[in-house]
């Protein structure tokens, strides 16, 4: 619906008149310079005016009381002296400034150390300091906040890059810059170049590359406004950087005003601080494009603002190297920042094409880390990964992916519910798919283990010769399950003696229902299978549809399909036999409370509780016997163990094989790898036997391969440590 607004006005690189002058282009995009088609004179005039106002501002605000005292009237001396307690006195302001300056300097001294040769020079530091001071003095309700310096730095940097481009051109086309009528220009150097000049002069200015023409006319000291109007000017770089910074912070009347992200105060519209609001919008979009990843993060308690605060505040400046960042900012700034109309809440901080892109890019970054995030089992590790974005990222791909999500992002922003509803981040979509669809994403972690077991059973039925392997594998599972259980227990934060009440309920419910393993396998597995497949399909199909089209017509059906189709799964009464139910309830409460405040490990324990239904849990008793409070678990284990032991033949000898040590060794990992490989092997064997379920099996193979990939992640992570 909004594709017209969203599609970038920018017609590729070639369409941009100032493609090679980033500083000029950004000044146009940020609304400081007039639109691209304006005449050079117009540019120069606007430019000169903005510089004038900066100069006036600087003169007015950065006063030194030591200097100004002679002209200030005498009668003020009583009120206005260095010992005055009045904060409004010149001296009071002076000291306030000194304090501010100290704070700014502390950050500036740590600014881009990797580009220290530029940013750490006294000249550059001085320019940056003055700009920040002035902006902060003019915006006392914000003051200086960490991160502002890193928003400013790239702006100055691109102006500098433009000047370097200018000097390149000046070298190459020297004669066009030389005023031959001005006696001063005839220095010795110029005489040396006389020969070249004659050649070049044959080409008139009009025949040059238009880009060169532009640079030359931008630098003509005789143009409109004279020296003050020179668009690329070393002398006025500070002025220009200030106007850019001011426009970026202020948003030029549009939705994305970076200053918002530094504000602590809730916005009057919805009572949320803008960072939180934007973070919610980001998660909302994620929930639309990749529900399973979203659910995983929410389950772990990864609240979006933990990482998005930094992403937004410095507009991804910490996540990418400076050169890459400039490309990203090119994209961001090229998009229109005027508020999108037609939505209930016009005031949203991301409610513009530019904001939609920012949100999409953030989601694109999360998706980039998808597999490593899914392989992560605790929030801290997830956040570590989110805040250490890989350096060798394929930037083009990342941006492309973000662009394909923009229409969805616009819709997501528009569908953020009325603030009065305490629903928090779980915004109901127009189709209301999020709420109803959410349970389908709960995939009990035992999924694979059950799947393996099913295959083992099949194998046994088929009397395949690999019985030894199977036994090994089952042994491996039992160890894993044991380890998980023991971890689950200790993970319930600190006290082994206490068990979170909800978890106990889960356990009790499960025991009460007398779940047999057979029923778990037959129904639970079927349901789960669908769940998982949908989780994957979500991503695959969205990628597919994104890469093919920009229009949203093609995307919408696929999204609707993705989200809607799993619904029957959650409706099944026998689904996961009651373990699912409490979990589902738990999850349904979450959106109501509207918070991301799931407990670190506790939220994890819910689903894990359901995973303990495996028969092998019985082997875990020894891990608890010393703990007085673990009785409920052991009871539960016993309940479960009875029916399950009948299914697999070799269960009884397991406890002996279980290592007390809970440490995961490399051996365990390699064992797991072996198991996965065996799964794939067995699939290939079965594939020959029964061709009817090939599709199913190849899916299994894919899953096993994914597992292998995760192991390799873990191994590499270990190595890093």
């Amino acid at each position, binding site marked *: 619906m909004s594709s017209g607004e969203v599609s970038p006005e920018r017609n590729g690189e070639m369409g941009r008149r100032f493609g090679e002058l980033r500083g000029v282009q950004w000044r146009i995009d940020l609304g400081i310079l007039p639109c691209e088609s304006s005449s050079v004179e117009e540019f120069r005039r606007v430019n000169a005016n903005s510089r004038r106002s900066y100069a006036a501002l600087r003169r007015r605000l950065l006063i030194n009381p030591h200097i100004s005292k002679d002209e200030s009237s005498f009668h003020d001396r009583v009120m206005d002296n260095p010992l005055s307690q009045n904060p409004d006195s010149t001296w009071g302001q002076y000291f306030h400034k000194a304090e501010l300056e100290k704070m700014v300097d*502390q950050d500036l001294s740590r600014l881009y*150390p990797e580009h220290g040769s530029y940013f750490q020079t006294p000249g550059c530091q001085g320019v940056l300091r003055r700009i920040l001071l002035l902006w902060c003095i003019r915006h006392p309700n914000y003051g200086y906040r960490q991160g502002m310096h890193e928003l400013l730095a790239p702006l100055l940097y691109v102006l500098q890059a433009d000047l370097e481009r200018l000097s390149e051109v000046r070298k190459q086309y020297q004669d066009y810059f030389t005023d031959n009528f001005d006696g001063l220009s005839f220095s010795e150097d110029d005489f040396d170049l006389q020969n070249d000049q004659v050649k070049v002069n044959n080409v008139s200015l009009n025949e040059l590359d238009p880009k060169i023409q532009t640079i030359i006319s931008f630098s003509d000291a005789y143009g409109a406004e004279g020296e003050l109007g020179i668009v690329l000017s070393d002398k006025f770089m500070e002025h220009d950087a200030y106007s850019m910074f001011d426009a970026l912070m202020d948003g030029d009347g549009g939705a994305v005003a970076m200053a918002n992200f530094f504000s*602590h105060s809730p916005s009057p519209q919805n009572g949320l601080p803008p960072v939180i609001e934007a973070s919610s919008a980001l998660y909302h979009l994620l929930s639309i494009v990749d529900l399973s990843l979203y659910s995983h993060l929410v389950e772990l308690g990864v609240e979006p603002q*933990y990482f998005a605060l930094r992403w937004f505040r410095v507009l991804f400046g910490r996540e990418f190297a400076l050169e890459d960042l400039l490309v990203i900012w090119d994209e961001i700034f090229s998009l229109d920042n005027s508020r999108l109309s037609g939505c209930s809440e016009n005031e949203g901080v991301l409610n513009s094409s530019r904001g939609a892109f920012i949100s999409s890019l953030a989601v694109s970054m999360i998706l980039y880390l998808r597999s490593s995030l899914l392989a992560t089992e*605790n929030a801290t590790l997830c956040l570590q990964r989110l805040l250490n974005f890989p350096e060798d990222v394929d930037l083009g791909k990342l941006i492309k992916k973000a662009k394909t999500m923009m229409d969805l992002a616009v819709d997501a922003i528009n569908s953020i519910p009325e603030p009065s509803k305490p629903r928090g981040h779980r915004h109901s979509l127009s189709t209301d798919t999020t709420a109803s669809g959410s349970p389908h994403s709960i995939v009990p972690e035992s999924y694979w283990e059950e799947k393996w077991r099913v295959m083992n059973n099949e194998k046994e039925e088929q009397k395949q010769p690999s019985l030894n392997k199977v036994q090994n594998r089952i042994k491996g599972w039992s160890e894993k399950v044991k380890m998980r259980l023991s971890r689950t227990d200790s993970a319930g934060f*600190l006290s082994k003696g206490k068990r979170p009440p909800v978890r106990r309920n889960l356990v009790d419910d499960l025991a009460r229902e007398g779940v047999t393993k057979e029923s778990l396998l037959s129904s639970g597995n079927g349901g789960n299978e669908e769940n998982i497949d949908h989780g994957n399909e979500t991503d695959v199909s969205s990628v597919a549809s994104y890469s093919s089209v920009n229009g949203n017509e093609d995307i919408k059906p696929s999204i609707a399909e993705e989200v809607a189709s799993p619904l029957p799964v959650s409706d099944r009464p026998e689904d996961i036999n009651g373990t699912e139910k409490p979990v589902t309830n738990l999850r349904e409460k979450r959106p109501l409370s509207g918070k991301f*405040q799931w407990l670190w490990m506790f939220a994890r324990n819910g689903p894990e509780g359901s995973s303990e239904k495996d028969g092998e849990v019985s082997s875990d008793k020894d891990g608890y016997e010393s703990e007085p409070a673990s009785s409920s678990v052991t009871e539960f284990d016993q309940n479960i163990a009875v029916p399950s032991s009948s299914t697999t033949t070799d269960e009884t000898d397991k406890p002996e094989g279980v290592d007390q040590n809970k440490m995961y060794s490399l051996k365990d990992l390699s064992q797991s790898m072996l198991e996965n490989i065996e799964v794939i092997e067995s699939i290939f064997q079965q594939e020959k036997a029964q061709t009817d379920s090939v599709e199913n099996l190849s899916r299994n193979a894919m899953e096993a391969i994914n597992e292998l990939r995760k192991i390799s992640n*873990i191994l590499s992570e270990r190595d890093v440590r």
Partner: protein
Amino acid sequence: MAAYRADDDYDYLFKLVLIGDSGVGKSNLLSRFAKNEFNLESKSTIGVEFATRSIRVDDKIVKAQIWDTAGQERYRAITSAYYRGAVGALLVYDTSRHVTFENVERWLKELRDHTDQNIVIMLVGNKADLRHLRAVPTEEAKAYAEKENTYFMETSALEALNVETAFTEVLTQIYHVVSRKALDAGNDPSALPKGQTINVGSKDDVSAVKKTTCCSA
């Protein structure tokens, strides 16, 4: 994804927060402890950064999730989220800048406003290597720590002095609190009324139940 948990083998999981004024060296303390690295050219922290490390206390593996918060400002909007569930805190000041020590009081107040009363706090005077620039005498800080009933240590992330000890001490103390509390709580977990903050051990669960109406979303 369930089966592989090499990262996650631990008996106890403790969340620690690092707080203190900007530039006192919190991030370097953390990188020294978590990765044994020190970076003279580190950037200022924006928002919060995270690291983990497991150590052994007695015969248990204690995993520390450490939240390193930006010092210059306190992010009001998400402050309580930062502190939520924290059972230990290192309150850092710079021994060469007295003002950072003066602000300790403010930090302490904030900490106590947002965390459980049983939180283990250590006052850490960092940059002890800058001997010629010392502005906060050890005795002054020590006396203050005693008065406020916190642990105290002087460290140097640069020279790797006492960093390990400081973290280990905090984690060990938490461990002791927790194991003692676990015993006190007896073996009937259901006896604990829901919603009541009883000890550090239950903090993570209980506070999250209680506080679902504030912040975030």
